[in-house]
């Protein structure tokens, strides 16, 4: 594949996809729109999560905390004032959130602010923990998620406690969610390709060697962590205006677990792998509702079992780790080259891409 063809091809395919999304918003039924929206939000969150876990190799368990920060920020910003007075009947909402709400036109600002607040949270938690090596990050980020959960449950004048905030206007349309999804894929994959990204990958492969080569390990971990937190916050904000309600239980560890499955199955380190698996996951989650529904097999009646989905997902994660650790894509990206070589249209020149990759590894 010639280099100068790639950019126009990418732009063209995004344009075609945009047309599809525009058509879908008006013609698909509400159920499919909902699933597609969820898929896009999973893309934003999973691609961002992969930046810290897969590209930089730092095991974080905190995206649910960052998504909560983004979700609650957006909810507080866009909830109409009369609705605010109605929802906060336990204790009134504190100033300044009780006196204004952003109109639909400024929705993008609300989401951006949600991302910024989450990124600040990332700075706050990353600063003490990213200096440490190894698993402490996993504990500290998990702890951060739990701290956010406990705060959300107890700061009633801000978050309305366990009841959560209801009646958020439904601003997340397919155009918004998929716009953010494509933006996050482009941003994160460009970051991963840049010199910063190469430094992050060096840290993933061998932290000590990377440091010895003059890479500022702390700075690059921090960069990955903050960018990751930003997009997680954006995903949380989009989710809030998609399902029109936020509550602490929405952002429990299950959320992180879903994202972990997505990035592991997609291949730790592969941005495109995460994006594709995120879509598959959103659909799989809907398909697996069948497992939880009662089943009638002739004379045998199997009662529906709630929670079966999560059992299946956790088994999937364990099996993937035990038998197929590379995931769908390993560390490779899906590029035009690989697409064309798979289609077998461009002959030998491109067909060698995968082989040469393998030879480098061995």
């Amino acid at each position, binding site marked *: 594949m010639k280099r100068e063809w790639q950019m126009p091809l990418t732009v063209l395919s995004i344009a075609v996809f945009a047309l599809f999304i525009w058509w879908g918003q008006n013609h698909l039924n509400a159920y499919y729109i909902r699933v597609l929206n969820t898929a896009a939000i999973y893309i934003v969150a999973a691609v961002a999560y992969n930046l810290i876990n897969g590209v930089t190799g730092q095991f974080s368990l905190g995206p649910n905390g960052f998504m909560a920060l983004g979700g609650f920020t957006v909810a507080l910003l866009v909830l109409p004032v009369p609705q605010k007075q109605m929802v906060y009947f336990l204790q009134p909402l504190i100033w300044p959130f009780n006196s204004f709400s952003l109109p639909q036109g400024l929705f993008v600002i609300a989401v951006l602010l949600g991302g910024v607040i989450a990124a600040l949270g990332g700075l706050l938690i990353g600063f003490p923990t990213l200096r440490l090596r190894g698993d402490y990050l996993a504990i500290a980020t998990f702890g951060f998620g739990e*701290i956010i959960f406990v705060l959300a449950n107890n700061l009633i004048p801000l978050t309305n406690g366990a009841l959560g905030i209801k009646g958020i206007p439904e601003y997340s349309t397919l155009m918004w969610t998929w716009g953010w999804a494509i933006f996050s894929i482009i941003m994160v994959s460009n970051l991963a390709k840049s010199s910063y990204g190469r430094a992050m990958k060096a840290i993933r492969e061998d932290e000590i060697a990377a440091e010895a080569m003059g890479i500022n390990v702390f700075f690059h971990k921090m960069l990955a962590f903050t960018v990751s937190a930003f997009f997680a916050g954006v995903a949380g904000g989009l989710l809030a205006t998609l399902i029109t309600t936020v509550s602490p239980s929405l952002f429990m560890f299950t959320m992180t677990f879903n994202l972990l499955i997505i990035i592991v199955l997609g291949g730790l380190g592969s941005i495109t792998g995460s994006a594709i698996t995120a879509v598959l996951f959103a659909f799989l989650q809907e398909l697996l509702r069948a497992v939880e529904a009662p089943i009638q097999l002739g004379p045998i009646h199997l009662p529906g079992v709630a*929670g079966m989905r999560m059992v299946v997902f956790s*088994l999937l994660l364990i099996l993937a780790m035990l038998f197929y650790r590379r995931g769908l894509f390993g560390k490779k990206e899906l590029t035009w080259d690989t697409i064309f070589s798979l289609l077998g249209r461009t002959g030998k020149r491109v067909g060698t891409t995968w082989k040469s990759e393998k030879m480098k590894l061995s």
Partner: protein
Amino acid sequence: MDIQSFIQQLLNGISLGSLYALIAIGYTMVYGILRLINFAHGDVFMLGTYFAFYLVMIFMLPWWLSAILAIALSALVGMFIDRVAYRPLRNAPRISALITAVGVSFFMENTGIVVLGARPKGFPRPDFMSHAYNLGGAYITGVSIWVPVISIILLLVLFYVIYRTKIGMAMRAVSTDMETTRLMGVDLDRVISYTFAIGSALAAAGGIMWACKYPQINPLMGIFPGWKAFTAAVVGGIGNILGATIGGLVIGIIEIMIVAFFPALSGYKDAFVFIVLIVFLLVKPTGILGETLKEKV
């Protein structure tokens, strides 16, 4: 606060802390040898209480016998988890084992919800645990006395095993230098298996006493005690058994004292443990008794 209620709270703190200590030892032993946070440890704790619960309720066994059987069963479960989920990943990157551990934990919790039911169950506690004793005017329930006593006995047994038996010596050797120990002819997998067995047994013992203290059990009950115990292991210096004991007591006493002195903050107590952890990581990343880990290059 008068001195009497302070002592009462301190006893409560010690009894909670000794439970954290029992769980923390399982984390610290596994981490000391494999450098793996065994996320599923808290769920073994949960499983231990369910074993005891069903042994009492279904098989009508006497209380002490079902406790012992539950502890033994949990030890087997711990060994099984290691065999199935962690052993195939011994030579894999550490992040793979860590992700598997998260998966195992989530699997146990959700299978627990499906099989055991999400609704909490009342735990039948024996009389001597719920009896209130009169100690110089202050009434103290049996739990606050018996939990630390049983914990100390278990800890003494553990220290004997670690420092006076052959398998204990092997464990200490493996945690110091795995490769060299293997070259000396020690069966690594066996030692690691025993480590999981001992850790899981202690977690189950902790779980049963936990259920005597808070007599309601549910499939997610292992999450928070598990994380607090892990925090305790880190605070005490991960890999160090005495450190885990001290860390457990510290975390338990802090938690009880916060609720006792600042009742308004009691909703935040679960978050406070993690704040303690982060502050501690900042000030003394290796913990109270921890040595600086040498990075292997």
